């Protein structure tokens, strides 16, 4: 199916709901753009923009009605691909049963190219050497309606990482929002997207629409908030373990774990065990963990990485270098979230530039 043009997203939301999906899209909540369940297009953040800088995020007003006129939201797809807490096992008496959490049919509306790249990274983590069946089921139940970025944020650097700003793969639908007249160019990524799109009233995309969409992505690529040279990073970063910059960044890092919680690819988890009051039933759950915590590496009474220096070095080196050794890709997709949401404004692109 070819690309189509539609003046509103309302019929698309209706079609997705009719196809059995809960639609999760951008909304304004808590002073930020948050991904939440929506029932109609009226809940989308029309006329909302944002300003993102290291350690700073605030919403702004736009002087138009653009719906996707802001950069990466604090929510990524991770919340749905790898929920923050999952019960895995229930133990009763001598039996241990697998808890099969349902895989909800959710349509994520408004993911960016970097978010799609992050999902592709997660696929390698969870479907690689030891495939995780529950992850696969959640993943297959997700419908991905991506949006091509129009206005990258002040902390974005997906162009440097080769992951954006235009979505090239991994989506069911890719939407480009166009102005004057306000309309949406929608490209299906496969049969599932095409089937949903068939239920949406639309017109064919003209050459002029295509040209306008291309211009959106070209302008976005030219306006990245940040850039970084990651050529050869897999070699030079692990070799730089004695670089003085590590002590410098460690003096600013609070080990607060924000960067890992907000990162769309950070996958580390820990286990929690509970028993009910009678002691008859016990449960094991998995929840997000962070390599910035002290007990993460505890061994023989002490953590292996006891200093903030070692923990920051581990995180940055893993994201940009040793991730390749383990999963064959970069662990960073350049979304800039960790830069925006670091309380002390630590900027991975700046740290990499200084360490190089």
């Amino acid at each position, binding site marked *: 199916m070819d690309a189509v043009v539609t003046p509103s997203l309302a019929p698309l939301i209706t079609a997705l709901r009719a196809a059995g999906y809960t639609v999760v899209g951008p909304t304004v909540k808590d002073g930020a753009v948050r991904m939440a369940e929506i029932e109609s297009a009226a809940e989308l953040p029309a006329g909302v923009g944002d300003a993102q800088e290291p350690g700073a995020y605030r919403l702004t007003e736009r002087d138009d009605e653009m719906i996707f006129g802001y950069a990466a939201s604090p929510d990524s797809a991770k919340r749905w691909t790898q929920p923050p807490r999952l019960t895995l096992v229930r133990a009763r008496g*001598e039996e241990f049963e697998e808890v099969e959490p349902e895989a909800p049919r959710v349509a994520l509306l408004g993911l960016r190219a970097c978010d799609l790249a992050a999902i592709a990274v997660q696929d390698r983590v969870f479907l690689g050497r030891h495939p995780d069946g529950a992850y696969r089921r959640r993943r297959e139940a997700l419908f991905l309606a991506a949006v091509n970025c129009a206005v990258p944020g002040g902390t974005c650097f997906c162009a440097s990482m080769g992951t954006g700003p235009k979505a090239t793969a991994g989506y069911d639908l890719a939407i480009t929002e166009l102005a004057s007249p306000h309309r949406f160019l929608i490209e299906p990524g496969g049969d599932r997207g095409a089937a949903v799109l068939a239920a949406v009233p639309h017109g064919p995309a003209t050459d002029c629409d295509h040209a306008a969409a291309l211009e959106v992505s070209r302008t976005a690529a030219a306006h990245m908030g940040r850039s970084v040279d990651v050529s050869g990073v897999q070699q030079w970063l692990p070799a730089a373990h004695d670089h003085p910059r590590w002590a410098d960044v460690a003096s600013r890092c609070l080990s607060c774990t924000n960067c890992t919680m907000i990162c769309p690819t950070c996958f580390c988890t*820990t286990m929690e*065990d509970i028993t009910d009051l009678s002691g008859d039933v016990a449960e*094991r759950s998995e929840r997000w*963990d962070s390599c910035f915590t002290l007990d993460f590496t505890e061994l023989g009474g002490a953590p292996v990485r006891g200093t903030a220096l070692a923990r920051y070095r581990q995180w940055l080196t893993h994201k940009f270098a040793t991730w390749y050794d383990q999963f064959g890709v970069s662990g960073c997709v350049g979304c800039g979230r960790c830069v925006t949401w670091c309380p002390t404004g630590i900027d991975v692109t700046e740290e990499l530039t200084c360490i190089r």
Partner: protein
Amino acid sequence: MTPAPYRVRSRRPDRADTVTLALEPLRGPSPAFLPGQFDMLYARGIGEIPISMSGRGRTGAHVHTIRAVGAVSDALCRARPGDVVGLRGPFGTSWDVPAAAGRDVVVAAGGLGLAPLRTVVRELAAHRRRYGRISVIAGTRTPMTLLYPRELTRWRLAHDIDVHVTVDHPDQDWPGPVGPVTRLIDRIVFEPRRTTAFVCGPEAMMCAVADDLVRRGVPPARVVLSLERNMKCAVGRCGHCQLGPLLLCLDGPVLDYRRVAGLLSVREL
């Protein structure tokens, strides 16, 4: 990630804080495993920890030697014959004992490191004639904390294995050597270039032994260690067991010194 129920077949206290449990599945046969591999043992409602196999029971049971150091290992050490615990495994890489055929073999253990190495020595003993000189050197805190004392004697007497034990803190009756395991290397005979070494113990001990052996001419690729890190999942997706580029639950725990010497030399990696 769901443990299978295993019944405690037998329980033998090894010393004050350590027991050896033989575990058999409630249903079906015990999965096969190789020396150096580990299981994730689950104490209901308390937690799950990695424990190496220290032997194989007659029916294929997974035998584990466990030291009580915290909540989970405590609970496992208190399990009685007939009790049920959870088990996932086996996981991880193993010591390739057959590959040492025709060579001298040095087995070096520090403390509880003797537990996983017992599976190595048992395999060596079972095919004694395939190997050259076999030496077992083991360090322990005090004479009272030595694991498997009778089996060590049997290896020496019945299998022509040169066994040496050293202690950190001797008591009045201790007749043997005192000090680190590395001192025992002077007491054993091996031809370095034709030697394979299997090493397990605290990281500092393993590095000291490996450095010494390499200095004497044992090829680094033939010095094979079992590394330890915090582990939660054992299948490469919790992130806890990273050592630089490695995920020790999948790439390890057994790795040769050529591969890891550089990584172990970086503090807090």
